[in-house]
């Protein structure tokens, strides 16, 4: 599904933010990505959802070498990946329903299917009473759920979520986690980036740890981050 081999990344001419990252996400797996703020979690996710290109190394997504694909071959691959952004990235002028329906419209789905599917999904995330509301009128938790609904409406093969529980309390965080697990049971590969160690400890899913751009893992339930990897991360708080 996702394979990184010795991947390095830098922004422009700046310092490298990811060094020699090796990662393999098997189809249908559920994974966490932990690390302190600034460790490189978002950069790693950006490489997966094709918002950035690596400065070195090899990335294989859905058995395709990303570096060799022409630019016009990337949109269909992006449509196979659902992304929950840390800052939601909802379109403020569109209603909740239109925001959720956006990936289906982009994918060219039929009009009647889009409306029914979007409404059904909003009911699933508990937002059926605010379908016509505009994002600025929603709470952080509601926006988060809209973002999740938008990310999963196309039934992506891979779901990437950047701090999806960062703006909600523990009970809602667990509810969202159950939602991701439900999707995973339906066959979606899931990668959740979080600095919420409690969330990781409360499940048995493997997790990767990023510290100063270096990736460790997969770590399984009960395994702790090796000191060499953990120490610098703790320094960042």
């Amino acid at each position, binding site marked *: 599904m996702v394979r990184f081999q010795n991947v390095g990344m830098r922004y422009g001419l700046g310092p490298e933010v990811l060094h020699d990252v090796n990662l393999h996400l098997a189809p249908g797996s559920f994974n966490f990505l932990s690390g302190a703020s600034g460790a490189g979690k978002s950069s790693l996710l950006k490489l997966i959802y094709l918002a950035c290109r690596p400065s070195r190394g090899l990335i294989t997504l859905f058995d395709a070498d990303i570096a060799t694909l022409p630019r*016009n071959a990337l949109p269909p691959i992006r449509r196979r*990946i659902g992304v929950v952004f840390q800052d939601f990235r909802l379109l403020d002028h569109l209603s909740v*329903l239109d925001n959720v329906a956006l990936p289906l419209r982009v994918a060219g789905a039929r009009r009647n299917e889009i409306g029914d599917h979007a409404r059904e999904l909003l009911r699933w995330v508990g937002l059926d009473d605010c379908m016509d509301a505009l994002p600025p009128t929603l709470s952080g938790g509601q926006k988060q759920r809209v973002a999740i609904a938008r990310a999963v409406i196309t039934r992506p093969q891979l779901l990437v979520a950047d701090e999806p529980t960062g703006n909600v309390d523990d009970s809602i965080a667990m509810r969202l986690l159950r939602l991701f697990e439900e999707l995973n049971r339906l066959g979606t590969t899931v990668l959740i980036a979080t600095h919420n160690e409690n969330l990781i400890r409360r499940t048995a899913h493997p997790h990767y740890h990023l510290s100063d751009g270096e990736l460790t893992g997969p770590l399984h339930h009960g395994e702790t981050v090796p000191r060499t990897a953990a120490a610098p991360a703790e320094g960042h708080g």
Partner: protein
Amino acid sequence: MLWRARDLALDSDPARRFLPWLLAMIVFLAGIALAGMMSLSAAVERWDTGLSGTLTVQLPAPARGAGNREVEAAIAALMRAPGVTRAHALDARETATLLEPWLGTGALMDDLPLPRLIDVRIRADAKPDIEGLTALVRAAVPGAVIDDHKKSLDRLIALARTAELVAGAIVLLVVIAAIATVIFITRTGLAMHAGGIEILHLIGAADSYVARQFQGQALELALRGGVIGLALTALTVFGLGRAAAALGSGLLPDLSLGPAQWAALAGVPVAVALIGMITARITVLRALKALP
């Protein structure tokens, strides 16, 4: 709600307010230039058709001796020349009608020593020898002058063609101005909606999907402006035509347009709208190449 909304909030752009008016002015200028160009073309066509294959022979005024006998002698000489099919002497009333735009009507005409004019028709394939013909007519009526219209007509046509070129250049400049305006406004829109465009891009929208948002807006605004511009053009052309007709002067060419010319004018806003749409699409596609 699901389908009425644009994915990008282009409707809230400030450009949306002034672009139709800007394009209305552009269409108005292009329309006026085009109407002028078409009027001139039609006038040149009429002059060319009306005057080719004709000559005018001018005999000295009767006071100096050009009476009916001289006219008949000149006509007889003309009819002997190769290629001449008809020679018709204009009577005093016809001559007065010709001079009316310059001299007006009234008794003055009777007091002037007007020359006698003979309208000569030449076979279409004949190339008359003007010098030989002049010598022939002068042998019959001394002092006769032949005007083959060609020199004056050529000068007039050259002037009209120059005016047409100027009008064509104006249309070209106006098109360039329309393209530049749409490029500027599209680029402003791209900068304003960079966040929304990035979201569309990341959820898998192809560049053409994003471009359709902008080209659709450009088409809509350009059509709106085009209709306003066309209405202003039609009013102006119609008004000028009426004013020229009311003046009733033979000095002014006919400024009225035919159905085909009106149809061409109606095509201006459509052309500007299509140019706007294509320009917006190309501008967006080029800009999106910068995204990964």
